[in-house]
């Protein structure tokens, strides 16, 4: 990518300008990350009074632990469902709004609002709506004969966190898809219409392929956010339960470390997550920055 290079006459000015950001990154990312890496090689007592070097024991133990393997599976189900649901619904909304002329701005604004809601608040919102005792949705599901109880039923609990997590993500995806759709020249759609492609055919053969850079970008961003940015939603709705049913990796880091006080294992888990993020970021830079070729 071609970027404009700014030339600073003073050699130290650019560093001075970067310093605050670098300081924040260092204090809140590199330092804790280094701590986590270090801690993952130690076994530490709950009060932090003594610690013992154990090498890779924390890691090897993790992959023998049924709870952790279960959590990987739950995370996969959660991330794939959330990403899939958020992408497909957002695309449908974007296509619908793109067809409008006068009411487009109103719908766009309304569809963006959920993104402004804090994750914990969104979690509480869904917790109330799905509350088996007082919630409106279990009441309605009861009418059609379904006994909703996410406190007992792991599937119900998973559905709840998937809905809560994707709800917010839809707004984000929607605005990207809408921008992507509006960037497609109108004449392309008209050319396709003259070329005998109906609305469905032209969507799948023209519009969707042209949206592929947007779609791929959103896919990566959504997976990252489903993996790491959903702590608040899970904590506010299911808290990992019932019986580990929604204990996804990022929540398990918290549970094992701050509730179970198994600091070494928790550190090892967060190092693994960090590796996954780095991998996804690399994929994103490799393919997005060079653009998906079409």
């Amino acid at each position, binding site marked *: 990518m071609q970027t404009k290079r700014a030339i600073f006459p003073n050699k130290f000015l650019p560093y001075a300008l970067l310093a605050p950001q670098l300081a924040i990154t260092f204090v809140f990312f590199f330092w804790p990350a280094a701590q986590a890496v270090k801690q993952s090689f130690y076994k530490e007592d709950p009060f932090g009074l003594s610690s013992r070097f154990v090498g890779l024991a924390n890691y090897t133990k993790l992959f023998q632990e049924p709870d952790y393997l279960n959590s990987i599976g739950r995370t996969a189900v959660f991330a794939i469902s959330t990403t899939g649901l958020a992408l497909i619904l957002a695309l449908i909304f974007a296509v619908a709004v793109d067809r409008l002329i006068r009411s487009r701005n109103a719908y766009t604004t309304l569809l963006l609002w959920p993104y402004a809601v804090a994750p914990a608040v969104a979690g509480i919102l869904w917790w109330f709506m799905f509350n088996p005792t007082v919630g409106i949705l279990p009441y309605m599901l009861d009418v059609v004969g379904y006994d909703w109880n996410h406190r007992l039923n792991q599937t119900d609990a998973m559905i709840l966190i998937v809905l809560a997590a994707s709800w917010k993500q839809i707004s984000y995806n929607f605005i990207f898809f809408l921008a992507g759709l509006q960037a497609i*020249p109108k*004449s*392309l759609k*008209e*050319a*396709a*219409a*003259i*070329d*005998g*492609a*109906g609305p469905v*055919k032209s969507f799948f*053969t*023209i519009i969707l*392929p*042209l949206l*592929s850079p947007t779609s791929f970008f959103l896919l990566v961003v959504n997976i990252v956010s489903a993996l790491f940015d959903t702590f608040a939603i899970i904590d506010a709705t299911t808290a990992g339960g019932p019986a580990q049913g929604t204990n996804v990796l990022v929540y398990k880091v918290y549970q094992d470390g701050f509730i179970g006080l198994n600091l070494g294992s928790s550190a090892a888990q967060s190092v693994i997550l960090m590796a996954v993020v780095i991998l996804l970021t690399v994929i994103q830079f490799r393919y997005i920055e060079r653009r998906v070729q*079409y």
Partner: protein
Amino acid sequence: MSSIVLKDVRKVYAGNVEAVKGVSIDIADGEFIVLVGPSGCGKSTLLRMIAGLEEISSGEVSIGDRVVNRVDPANRDIAMVFQNYALYPHMSVYNNLAYGLKNRGMAKAEIDRRVKEAARILEIGDYLDRKPRALSGGQRQRVAMGRAIVREPAAFLFDEPLSNLDAKLRVQMRVEIKKLQKDLGTTSVYVTHDQLEAMTLADRLVVLNGGSIEQIGAPIDVYDKPASTFVASFIGSPAMNLIDAKADASGLAAAKGEGLSGANAYGREAYVVGVRPEHLKVLRGEAAAPADAALTLRMKVKVLEPVGAESYLYGELPNGGASLVVRVESHETFAIGEMVTLHAPAKDVHFFDAQSGRRIEG
């Protein structure tokens, strides 16, 4: 191949904005029609109504004896070349050409034959595997044309197809489009704002202004006998000199300034007198205009603009009169402020109604 007939076609947008105000044109089979006019004259809207991309508010469009007002663009048997080419960026050139045929369920072998044939005609055979972004502007233009010809449609519709090309390529493609259309004999409607493109390509010109037809005719007829001051100033470059004149029994005089004289050909009191820059002869010094001159003008020289093969001399009637332009020999030189005499014979002088701007004819 077929004829296209427009019958009192109108386009009214929301808020009662009338973009096309009752246009009727009979386009014969195989004819090359150019719709020309300034931006906002409704020419593109008219073309898009023929294509089916724009709803027809009232009136009737028929393609080959079939009224198509309510027919989808896909089923009108037309192909369109867009200003920005509208090539599918994710498809190879081959697939760009084949897309419309595949959608119609044509057999693979026949698609292949047609694409290869079009590629041969347009000399794009070497690029069939490339994506549009790997092509130059001229090559893209050819692919866009190819997409139209593989369809073997009843009519080609061109929406300013050359305006994104540089000047040299534009002239080259203009010649090729004309040749291609003559070879294929396909009825064509071509929209442009460039009067030169319109003149060179058209079998017949349709000059549009403000949503209405000003004049329909062969390019040379439109040039020789413009129906209104609008057409007179739009067709031809530089534009025709148009001078407000008053008249009485003794002859013509400039409405503003002085230095105009001539015969009062139609016995009226006021005219707009028109004469093309290339039809005026220049006399220097105090030489008198010949006896057969129907119009004589005195001009104070302001600018000489050489364009190579010829030069254009700009000036005005003395004492704040109308601006004038005249074509002169390329190497002739003039002093700024020099007074010259211009004259033209009766056959080259046009008279227009002072109010309506319509042409007056005897």
